[in-house]
């Protein structure tokens, strides 16, 4: 599917921290170029223009869904968008929002008081539970260039290719010190989808798994390694839970 620039673009935000849209804006050197190939139709943080276009070329969607109103908005935008791209951990898996387990109603009341009881919400859901998703950009947040690459690829009628491999492989390529083996640190590199160039382990910080679980991840083996490294069962669960890697 080829597009003739400028493409009509909207940014939809649901339950999120706005970090994914800020990541797009963090491409400061490329925004001027972007200005010539996109037309903003709904991007409240960036623009007051809310074009009521009948059809959109691309909708970028950030955040997880937590209320019927949000679902309605998502469906309306899906109906009029040729492509819909889910951006970031919140949109892909529910992200840190989805960590809250147990009875939601009780949590709502204890936090928001009486008003919390009347609030119509449900546990955070990823976008693909409700609509067809044409492309995914993982990360919490993604790397800034990934958003530009996606827009550029869409303009040319394609989608950026990515290799399916764990963060560990990027560590090997970069010859990073292994934090799991050498420091017994709770690094999720072995089961996390690569693409960040092993950003955290490269700096000596254990991977927290923000890009989500790589297909065919061997969780049992990682669990065994963590137990051997001296982590408690609860620590492991909390660690895996952060970006939906818990079993």
């Amino acid at each position, binding site marked *: 599917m080829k597009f003739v620039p400028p493409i009509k673009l909207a940014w939809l935000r649901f339950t999120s921290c706005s970090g994914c849209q800020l990541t797009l804006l963090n491409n400061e050197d490329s925004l001027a170029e972007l200005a*010539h190939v996109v037309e903003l139709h709904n991007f409240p943080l960036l623009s*007051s223009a809310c074009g009521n276009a009948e059809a959109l070329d691309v909708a970028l969607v950030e955040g997880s869904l*937590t209320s019927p109103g949000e679902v309605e908005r998502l469906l309306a935008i899906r109906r009029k968008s040729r492509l819909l791209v889910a951006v970031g951990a919140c949109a892909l898996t529910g992200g840190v929002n989805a960590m809250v387990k147990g009875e939601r109603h009780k949590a709502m009341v204890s*936090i928001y008081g009486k008003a919390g009881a009347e609030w119509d919400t449900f546990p955070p859901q990823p976008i693909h539970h409700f609509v067809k998703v044409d492309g995914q950009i993982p990360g*919490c947040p993604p790397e*800034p260039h990934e958003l530009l690459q996606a827009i550029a690829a869409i303009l040319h009628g394609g989608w950026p290719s990515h290799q399916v491999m764990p963060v560990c492989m990027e560590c090997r390529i970069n010859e990073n010190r292994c934090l799991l083996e050498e420091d017994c640190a709770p690094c999720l590199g072995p089961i996390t989808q690569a693409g960040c160039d092993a950003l955290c382990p490269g*700096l*000596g910080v254990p991977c927290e798994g923000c890009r989500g679980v790589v297909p065919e991840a061997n969780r049992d083996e990682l669990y065994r390694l963590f137990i051997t490294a001296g982590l408690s069962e609860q620590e492991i669960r909390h660690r895996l839970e952060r970006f939906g890697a818990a079993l």
Partner: protein
Amino acid sequence: MIRLVVDPLTRVEGHGRVELQLRDGKLVDVTVRLLEAPRLFEALVVGRRCDEVPDLISRICAICSATHKVTALQAIENAMAVKIPPLAAAYRELLLLGGHIQSHALHLFCLILPDLYGTPDIIELLRQKVPLAQAGLDLKAFGNRIQKIAGGRVIHPVNPVFGGIAYQPGHDELEKLAKELLCWQRDWPDFSARLLQLDNYPEASPVIGTAVATGLQDEFALTGDCLWYGNDNVIAASDYAQLFAERPRPDTHAKDATGKAGPFLTGALARDRLATGRNISRNALADHHGIHGNNLAQVKEVGWALHRVGQLLETLLRASRSEPLRTDLAQMQGGIGTAAMEAPRGLLLHHYVIDEWGTIVAADIVTPTALNQRVIAAQIMADLTDEKDHARLREVAERIVRAYDPCISCAVHLVTVENPSSLSDYQ
């Protein structure tokens, strides 16, 4: 009775709405609602090990992610009486200053500049090749580069960890930063003067609210142990709850500061007012445009931040590579800790109660936008009492909200959780 609704507010972070009530064509009531969806961070941190909490808490808000992370760490370290090594403190401050520059540049150039030129967004200014637009983005990029180097990642930084920092950035990276800083220090006076000349602000009445800020020791800093408010009143930061007396309110998702000394005003303009006599000189210009003077105060502050980054870089370039980065704690301890920080948009407080196994049993977060909630509505009322034109009412009300540089994602995550037993089954 006519009701005008501005929803969603644009060019502000998060989802908010303003409602204006008119009787016989005259503005009689203003409501500001902060409407972010619930993310239940409060339920999420209770029952977790405290060293895990800063990573989660930073996900409350991206613009202030560095501030949230460092403030959370500081509060937890205070609770356990952990003193971090000086080098770690310097890198954390560098990270915060990068965040300050980034956030002010985002606000001034991406959110405010379009109003000064009458366009819907900065994208249009870039199409028209307005020089200030790209220059402003370059400043934002510089702030982000500082954050990237000091924090490892621009949003949700990974370098600050419990007890200090995880790694020391490369010497060559700091040198590059220092070179770039020299250019900014050289260009800033002229650049900021051009920005200050644009005074296309709506007519405004005097600023409402009791200014409150931390970090006003002899030298201005982003963090401190005390809160200053009004005419030189001071209290310990850990006594914040008495001052603000925050309560939930049914019509908005953020708590309301009901303290008698209020309503409170926080942010660059409040800091500017309270800074008299400290090493950051007052920006007299900021008094001319009512609350829009907050923008001018931010311009002034960028100059201060650039200066402070220079001082820090000098120290850091001289630091030895073998200095300690992290204070290790043999065993977790219990305690109660508070930290007060000047986030780019105002005062931020984190407060934690931790049990002797290092588990969080209670948490409270006071955010700048929740503090400002009351004055925002009052200011709209004051500035627009004589305005009759509906389009103008909407436009100016939105610009007033924008001037506070609100961060609504932050504002709705701040409710005290004091009853851990009711939450234990959420873990």
